[in-house]
């Protein structure tokens, strides 16, 4: 890929930057007639996850996105796009609904991860993420996930058990933040750039590892161009899976993850 002189930490900064659209922003750019659906039907409605139904191209879809928010007040309210258990449970509720009505699911990922809070733990953050991984694996409808910003650990994966995962060039997807990694390894968070290199979390690396299926170039392109390519790609991926049997669809998803780190 071009721009070999861009460091991994530059990518991390770009992925987090407020200069680029949020995951929710991309979702709204791609989705026509978007109708937002709220709430997990159990406890609350998490504004860090924006979800609903609409059309991507000619396809009726269920869309689920992390939303970091706009103004400072909005960002506080949305916890900078870090979901609580209610967010993951809302996402799963909508995925199950999509399965019922045979709508493909498209997830947009972009936040530092699941929210680390007292209430989030009290209401089962770990259980909520686990349940999503478990249920998404056998969801009987195509699932496409897009990493547009920072894909932060288990909180990102909870929207990422898909048939096909696509990443923007400057997005990152990592088991741990470079700052936390540097703190644990070298007791020095200022060594985050070194940790960023070591973690190999860029889209280019993930493509090489077979963790994602597609990288969409961003350099010297407008947001509109990127969104247009992403839209074509998603529609095409949905069409490929409409031709599959249910068994083929589920085997494809299972085997995608099954082969990662297999011996």
């Amino acid at each position, binding site marked *: 890929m071009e721009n070999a002189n861009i460091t991994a930490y530059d990518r991390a900064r770009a992925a987090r930057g407020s200069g680029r659209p949020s995951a929710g922003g991309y979702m709204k750019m791609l989705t026509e007639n978007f109708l937002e659906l709220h709430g997990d039907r159990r406890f609350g409605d998490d504004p860090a996850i924006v979800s609903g139904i609409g059309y991507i191209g000619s396809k009726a879809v269920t869309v689920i996105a992390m939303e970091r928010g706009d103004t400072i007040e909005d960002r506080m309210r949305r916890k900078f796009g870090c979901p609580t258990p209610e967010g993951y449970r809302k996402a799963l509720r909508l995925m199950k609904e999509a399965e019922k009505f045979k709508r493909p699911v498209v997830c947009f990922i972009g936040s530092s991860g*699941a*929210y*680390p*809070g*007292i209430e*989030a*733990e*009290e*209401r*089962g*953050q*770990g*259980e909520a*993420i*686990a*349940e999503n*991984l*478990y*249920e998404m*694996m*056998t969801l009987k409808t195509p699932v496409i996930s897009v990493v547009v910003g920072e894909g932060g*650990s*288990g909180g990102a*994966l*909870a929207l*990422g*058990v898909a048939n096909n995962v696509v990443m923007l060039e400057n997005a990152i*997807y*990592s*088991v*741990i933040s470079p700052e*936390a*990694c540097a703190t*644990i*390894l070298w007791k020095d968070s200022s060594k985050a750039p070194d940790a960023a290199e*070591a*973690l*190999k*979390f860029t889209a280019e*690396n*993930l493509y090489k*590892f077979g*963790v994602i299926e597609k990288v969409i170039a961003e350099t010297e392109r407008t947001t509109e161009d990127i969104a247009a390519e992403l839209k074509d790609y998603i529609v095409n991926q949905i069409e490929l899976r409409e031709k599959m049997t249910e068994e083929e669809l589920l085997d494809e*998803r*299972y085997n995608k*993850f*099954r082969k*990662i*780190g*297999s*011996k």
Partner: protein
Amino acid sequence: MNFKNIFGFLKKDNEEERICKKCGQVIKYSLLFENDMICPSCNTYMRMGALERIAKITDDGTFSESDGELVSENIIDFPEYEEKLEKAKKASGLNEGVVCGTAEIHGSKCALFVMDSNFMMGSMGSVVGEKITRLFEMATKEKLPVIGFTTSGGARMQEGIISLMQMAKVSGAVKRHSDGGNLYITVLTDPTTGGVTASFAMLGDIIISEPNALVGFAGARVIEQTTGKALPKGFQRAEFMLEHGFIDMIEERGKLKDTISEILVLHKREVS
């Protein structure tokens, strides 16, 4: 290796002394092992290694290990990973952070995985994920219940994204095992956190925890720093998880085998 006699391996007559970190009591290993690795003077649960656990939970001579030869490689070329792996092997006496196999518990056959915190804090890399996935796939085919003892700091950062993906891989194998109508019991032990809590630890049909085990997703310090709030007493302990509805029961270490056996017997099906 198929170690038929774990007691031999653990040297039951071991005179080596251990110190209880809580009360400072010095205890002979053989006495401590006899007492389920619980301090006889202050009742503190010391962390158990995988082999000690297998010796306590399974019927003598019934454990047969699977995939014990699998070892981790430095797949993303992470700094100092090889050295850490070597140290972990010495500290734990194991090839990796989980031991898998089949065994009998009071005569009931089951598949078993036991994580070991002496191996890089029980962190989950690709070999841990692969071994547990293979165990679930075998158990699905053989229609065996799975018993899993968890202890882990979470996904292993030295394998980057490959570690993270093990959460999805194992959870998928657990789902297929469950869809086959098979039983999965998890036993949470101190500490079970991060990516292991957020995947197969929380997916048991029945979730048991040892008393006072730390069980949670996010690290306590991260939560304090993010929220600026003091954490409530007993936060993320087994009793807290029970109170909030996320585990079925807390069981004392000495009663675990009997309790697991009862659950296994209750779920026995006629094999046609």
